[in-house]
């Protein structure tokens, strides 16, 4: 039914607004035309297998036309094939059972002449309102007030209180009254935003014009009838004439359809073509000349099947088939979003996929482990790694992000991804409102989301690469090798003994701590304030010294200022000078700064000393230390101005006294000399100067002790031991442990051991963990999809129109996974086999791989799809078996050469009267060049690699720290590894893959577009990675290709395309080669530049190789 809605748009695009001489009667499609189609045409012309591809069961399909083109030319009945055919009374016309009555033919013609309009106001305008505003209550088996707005007859009949729609009379229709909030009753929809004026007007107009509700347009209330929501049953195999062509049931379905269309399948492709096609499809690499020779020479009757089996067993099989799955899994090596931090723990999941595919893990197991491996009883390490599928959602690490919102974003993505990957459904559309076209309600979407709302996370986590805190962190799991695990455990055991030592709380320890505390308090007394003989401001601040040595700023508050304080040295020898920033009630918010918030910022503090104020020299300061945790601007390498102390007092409501400690390189032996302390404020920011402060000096040997206790803990020292809370006591004890001189060796040992663990470089994997306290997860519906607008609480469940959780399955991710792969699920098997089909043939049986809903494309071969789906399940979800069936069919083995007639009849090859021919996936473009040139590394698995890419792509991320985010070309063979292993930075994917339509992996991708652009040509021509392949191929040709030019050219051809060139091609190639050779013989400098040697021959072969690697055939699976 929903395809009708599509038609409205389609029509809107097609109908010319040509002024018509209106015939007396205005024909209405639904009233006048549709019944004719239903009665006389639709028994044949419907569904995916309609004769000549002409369907009349949906206006969109009707207007799209048949294999011969459009059948309805709006405004021109005489040119419309439909009218010609029904007007043909020679006996060859339509319908075959005999011509329609004349009045019906006249109606049809008039409809076309009037523009073939389909004014279905109902589905275009009214139904969407019903769906988004009414069906939550007024649909299904038990609607509120017994009002079914989802079934035509029942809606027009009305609810418990009588009719609500009076056709032709909106004024008296209760439906209108209620949405307007009249009749003294609450306005509908209850508890939701009222309809807009425009929506109400739409309803009124629809009722006033007769409330036309086209037949067949019932909505979600009744059982779903859309094909994809009905469990597939194994269809009968169709009867075919050319039974000899049939190798397996797939061929029977394909051939039956071709015979119906009067088409014949193409011949089998040559063996060289077949082995290249199979190699690319099964392992993603072209065959070697030796493999081609062996296959061509193999005359056994099952040579082909043997080849398929060899390739299915290859370890490269998993590498090839991982890519389409990883597109669904939105696998990437970075977090995505703004800062797109690197994600070094992602790749173990990628490797898991490769291994699972190679091991031919049944698809049901494959599903359960990825969605809920952690919930399986006694789950293994591998089963946990598999949950990396769920974890692969993006993560927002921009400062200011809310952890709960991050979690929520991940859940939305996870539910939507399951919808696309397993259900072929756009359930994400129901995030904000009930799905406009498919039966998913908003509530059902959030029920799916709820499955993912029970995973453990922490609201803050330290990012080890970027040294910052991210909002939202999920579990990771160490993946040590046995040796690493052993070493790590040894170190950990040793570490524990030191940690125990550190965490000592014996009476002895407490005694030492008490002594330390006393020492710190006593130490305060070892400081002598500098009593100013003079204190001035360069810019007009009034500075007033108090008897305790403190200085208070008042009066003018200049933009920039320098305070200069002179004092007689209070001690003969000085080991440290400290600056205390003190609160004062006269300052904003109590100080200590003069900024609105009591903040201040000091750019520099310097000390001078001498015998008198006129003989001063600068004192070299070795160390500057602080006792506050204010923002460390001075640590920011990007900072242009030296900033020694920035205090964000606003973050310290208690306004602690904070201290800055200056330690000179050598103790100052100053006698009774003079000290000058200069405090500079250079900021342009208005009024961020220091407000109240004191400078003092000490001659103590360990001056750092004054900051042994940070400002916020210091008040605790004056609280008696038995008056401290447990937390306060622990804070102070922890502080003592961190500074205690006695414990210094222990701390050093701990740091050393922790560094040792780091040095093991144990890989980590992203995993999921469920919160066991919540056996049945829930979540809130979010109104209009807005995180902050909570609606009803819903429990995790599957969409009820698709069945329910299997008996005994828990209402968790595990239950969800079991439901997906249960025999009762109508979607999963179809979606999976369709995805394989699309990967192999370039187009799915359902073209819209991502959408099996009513707005998706109908299947081209519905019975085949169902047959494959049932077969897949019957074979216990055996992936390789179902693929083997496809690969060994006659359908697959056809030649892909095309004739103009066939191109005209079936341009997109949906009928499969020929083999697949299309440009290979991005990853294969790279792998073919590497394999043909002999550069390809055989190494599998592990951390992602970085081959050549132009500079400047990375290193420009907001939030990068120096040294991070550098694209350093991988050493050795790693730069020649398969594209699958190339680093996926989601916001800047490897450009030479992106250009060939590799998705960004930010969200789930079911189907890649296949474009052809000049940027691709530039890549394969000039990307140094590709040019290096050309150079290597030239070397290979010279080394392995024989001695004469013709043999070498042939060899090159075979390496790249797997076939020998035709005589004509060889002629062309040789003559161009000769020209090129001639050119380089006269331009040895260029030859040198291109090959590194003044070697014309090598240069000519390099350019020859570069050309071959750019052939259409090279980039194409043929």
């Amino acid at each position, binding site marked *: 039914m929903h395809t009708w809605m599509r038609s409205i748009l*389609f029509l809107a*695009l*097609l109908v*010319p607004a040509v002024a018509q001489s209106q015939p007396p009667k205005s024909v209405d499609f639904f009233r006048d035309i549709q019944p004719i189609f239903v009665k006389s045409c639709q028994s044949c012309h419907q569904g995916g297998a309609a004769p000549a591809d002409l369907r009349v069961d949906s206006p969109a399909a009707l207007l799209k036309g048949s294999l011969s083109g459009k059948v309805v030319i709006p405004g021109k009945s005489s040119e419309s094939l439909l009218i010609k055919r029904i007007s043909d009374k020679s006996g060859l016309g339509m319908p075959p059972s005999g011509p329609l009555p004349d009045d019906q033919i006249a109606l049809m013609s008039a409809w076309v002449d009037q523009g073939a309009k389909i004014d279905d106001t109902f589905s275009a305008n009214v139904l969407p309102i019903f769906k988004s505003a009414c069906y939550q209550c007024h649909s299904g088996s038990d609607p509120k007030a017994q009002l079914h707005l989802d079934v035509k007859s029942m809606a027009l009949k009305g609810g418990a209180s009588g009719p609500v729609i009076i056709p032709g009379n909106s004024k008296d229709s209760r439906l209108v009254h209620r949405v307007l909030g009249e009749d003294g009753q609450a306005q509908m929809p209850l508890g939701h935003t009222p309809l807009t004026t425009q929506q109400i007007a739409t309803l009124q107009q629809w009722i006033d014009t007769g409330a036309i509700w086209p037949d067949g347009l019932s909505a979600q209330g009744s059982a779903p009838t859309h094909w994809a929501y009905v469990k597939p049953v194994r269809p009968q195999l169709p009867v075919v004439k050319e039974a000899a062509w049939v190798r397996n049931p797939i061929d029977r379905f394909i051939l039956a359809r071709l015979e119906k269309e009067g088409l014949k399948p193409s011949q089998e492709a040559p063996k060289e073509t077949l082995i290249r096609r199979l190699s690319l499809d099964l392992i993603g690499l072209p065959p070697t000349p030796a493999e081609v020779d062996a296959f061509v020479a193999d005359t056994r009757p099952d040579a082909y099947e043997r080849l398929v089996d060899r390739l299915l067993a290859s370890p490269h099989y998993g590498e090839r088939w991982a890519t389409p799955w990883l597109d669904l899994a939105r696998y990437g090596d970075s977090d995505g979003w*703004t800062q797109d931090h690197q994600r070094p723990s992602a790749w173990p999941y990628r490797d898991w996929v490769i291994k699972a595919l190679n091991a031919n893990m049944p698809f049901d197991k494959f599903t359960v482990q990825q969605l809920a491996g952690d919930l399986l009883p006694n789950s293994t390490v591998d089963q946990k790694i598999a949950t990396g599928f769920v974890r692969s959602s993006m993560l927002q690490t921009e*400062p*200011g*992000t809310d952890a709960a919102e991050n979690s929520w974003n991940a859940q939305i993505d996870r539910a939507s991804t399951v919808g696309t990957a397993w259900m072929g459904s756009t359930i994400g559309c129901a995030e904000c409102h009930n799905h406009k*076209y498919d039966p998913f309600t908003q509530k059902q979407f959030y029920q799916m989301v709820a499955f993912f709302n029970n995973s453990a996370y922490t609201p803050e986590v330290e990012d080890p690469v970027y040294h910052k805190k991210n909002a939202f962190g999920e579990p990771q799991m160490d993946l040590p090798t046995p040796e690493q695990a052993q070493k790590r455990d040894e170190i950990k055991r040793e570490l524990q003994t030191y940690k125990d030592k550190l965490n000592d709380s014996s009476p002895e320890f407490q005694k030492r701590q008490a002594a330390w505390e006393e020492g710190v308090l006593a130490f305060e007394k070892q400081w002598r304030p500098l009593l100013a003989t003079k204190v001035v401001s360069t810019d007009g601040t009034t500075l007033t010294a108090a008897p305790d040595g403190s200085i208070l700023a008042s009066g003018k508050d200049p933009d920039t200022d320098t305070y200069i304080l002179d004092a007689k040295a209070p001690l003969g020898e000085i080991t440290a000078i400290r600056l205390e920033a003190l609160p004062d009630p006269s300052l904003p918010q109590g100080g200590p700064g003069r900024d*609105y918030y009591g903040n*201040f910022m000091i750019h520099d503090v310097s000390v001078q000393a001498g015998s008198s104020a006129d003989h001063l020299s600068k004192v070299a300061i070795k160390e500057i230390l602080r006792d506050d945790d*204010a*923002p460390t*601007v001075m640590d920011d390498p990007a900072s*242009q*101005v030296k900033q020694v102390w920035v205090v*964000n007092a606003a973050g310290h409501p208690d306004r602690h006294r904070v201290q800055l400690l200056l330690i000179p390189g050598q103790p100052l032996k100053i006698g009774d000399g003079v000290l000058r302390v200069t405090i500079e404020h250079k*900021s342009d*920011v208005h009024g*961020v100067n220091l407000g109240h402060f004191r400078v003092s000096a000490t001659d103590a040997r360990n001056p750092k002790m004054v900051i042994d206790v940070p400002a916020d803990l210091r008040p605790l020292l004056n609280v008696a031991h038995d008056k401290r809370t447990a937390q306060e006591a622990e804070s102070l004890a922890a502080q003592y442990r961190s500074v205690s001189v006695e414990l210094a060796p222990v701390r050093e040992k701990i740091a050393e051991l922790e560094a040792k663990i780091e040095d093991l470089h144990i890989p980590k994997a992203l995993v999921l963990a469920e919160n066991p306290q919540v056996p049945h997860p829930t979540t809130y519906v979010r109104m209009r999809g807005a995180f*902050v607008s909570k609606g009803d609480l819903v429990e995790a469940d599957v969409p009820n129109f698709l069945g329910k959780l299997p008996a005994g399955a828990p209402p968790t991710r595990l239950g969800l996974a079991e439901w997906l792969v249960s025999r009762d699920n109508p979607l999963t098997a179809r979606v999976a086999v369709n995805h394989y089909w699309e990967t192999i043939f370039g187009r799915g049986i359902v073209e*819209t791989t*991502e959408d099996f809903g009513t707005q*998706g494309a109908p299947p081209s071969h519905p019975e085949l799809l169902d047959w494959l789906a049932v077969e897949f399940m019957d074979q216990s979800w055996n992936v390789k078996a179902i693929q083997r069936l496809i690969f060994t069919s006659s359908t697959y083995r056809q030649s*892909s050469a095309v004739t103009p007639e066939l191109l005209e009849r079936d341009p997109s090859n949906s009928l499969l009267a020929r083999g697949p*021919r299309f*440009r290979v996936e991005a990853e294969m473009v790279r792998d073919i060049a590497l394999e043909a040139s002999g550069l390809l590394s055989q190494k599998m698995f592990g951390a992602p690699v970085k081959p050549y890419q132009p500079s*400047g*792509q990375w290193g*420009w*991320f*907001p939030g990068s720290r120096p040294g991070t985010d550098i694209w350093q070309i991988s050493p050795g063979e790693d730069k020649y590894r398969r594209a699958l292993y190339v680093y996926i930075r989601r*916001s800047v994917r490897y*450009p*030479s893959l992106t*250009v060939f339509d590799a998705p960004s992996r930010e969200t789930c991708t079911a189907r890649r*577009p296949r*474009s*052809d*652009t*000049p*940027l691709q*040509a530039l890549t394969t*021509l*000039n990307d140094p990675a590709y*040019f290096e392949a050309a150079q290597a191929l030239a070397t290979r040709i010279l080394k392995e290709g024989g001695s004469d030019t013709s043999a070498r050219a042939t060899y090159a051809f075979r390496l790249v395309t797997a076939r020998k060139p*035709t005589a*004509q*091609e060889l002629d*062309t190639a040789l003559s*161009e080669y000769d020209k*090129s050779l001639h*050119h380089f013989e006269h331009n040895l400098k*260029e030859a040198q*530049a291109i090959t590194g040697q003044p070697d014309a021959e090598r240069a000519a072969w390099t350019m020859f190789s570069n*050309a071959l690697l*750019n*052939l*259409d*055939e090279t980039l194409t699976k043929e």
Partner: protein
Amino acid sequence: MYKERQLDLTRRHFFDQAFGRAAGFGIGSAALASLLGERLFAENAVNHALDFAPKAKRVIYLQQAGGPPHIDLFDYKPELEKRDGEPTPESLIKGERFAFITGTPKLQKSPFAFKQFGNSGAMLSDLLPHLSEVVDDVAFIKSVYTTQFNHGPAQIFQMTGHQIPGRPSFGSWLSYGIGSEGQDLPAFVVLLSGSSNPEGGSACWECGFLPTVHQGVAFQKTGDPINFVSNPPGMTADTRRSSLDLVNKLNHEHLDVVKDPEISTRIAAFELAYKMQTSVPGLMDVASEPASIHEMYGTTPGRPSYANNCLLARRLVERGVRFVQVCHRNWDMHGTNYNDDVINKCPQACRETDRGSAALIKDLKQRGLLDSTLIIWAGEFGRTPMRQPAPFLGRDHHPKAFTIWMAGGGVKPGITVGATDDFGYNPIEDRVSIHDVNATALRLLGIDHKKLTYRFQGRDFRLTDVEGEVIQKVLA
């Protein structure tokens, strides 16, 4: 006229979707057009294919990433000056979420002086001396709001109409809808400057579900402006040409055998690539511009900058590029450190952008191109009229109201649309959404924003999602 265009769109749509391919840069690939036996879009597509008479034929979108403070640049607020330092009225901020502000923030006046300029009397702060010379060519919209308050999502929303990556950006829609005017450059080019890439990343110029051919081509700042447009070092153009001849000949011979039209498409793509190799170096060579032009923009040949990108944008639109996105990311100022405060950073960002933006208006005008080129200057959101608690003067992100400006291409010059309250906090007149801005821009290009659609996953998507009203007051 417009029906005809819809037919074309439909046909184009059909081919894109049915074959999953597109040739060359959108339109202009004669080879593909002929092999498909019908005209897809010809170079004069604009003239016959529009819903309305177009005023603008192309767009230069000056994307000011980071969130320029409207209070300090355009939206003068005497009341804010008066109440500087007072707690923000609760009526404004009750229940609000901010990225960084917590508690009750204090009102913060602009530290910069404002004056009126031009016949229109537009108020600008003294940070924009160059823009002040051309205010009579500009339409300011002071009542724009967005729905996102983090940079990444807000920028992606601004450029694609949806906050999550995956939808086509403005330039992609235009490339898809009306293609390129030129033959040897992409329809949609992105030029980047500033302290980093915009937080939204390439999602700000991606093509989403549209064919890749409509993706914005981000020119690199170093090396080849377009990846791999240069031959490998030492290779001459002749050598490249002769290797292409070999590719072409072999492709043609194979086409004769397998008859797949895809091969013709690839042959055309390689020819276009070759043309780009010749045209791009000349395009990038701004040293050929007279000294007066460099003076106007404030550019030095060989030095990448926003101003340099403005000059390049002019050269690109002269060569038929449909949409140039000039993105400068340096407008974030939270006051967390010296370099992040309004007093330092705002003048700096203005020094970086003011002259180039104004020069673009002047330069296009003197070339007679301003009338047909739409310039949009916009950030992803504004900044709070309150001070963020931070050691320096910072303002937080403010999605509820901010100022953008438009010029040229059918925009009514010398006007101001919309107004905010006394604090610049909420719009009080002509509230304008991002979708409204985009709908208006499309309208100026002659396109009804509701009709430029693409079917994906069963839904007809558009740049303006399900919203968008044309701002009539902006139309000349």
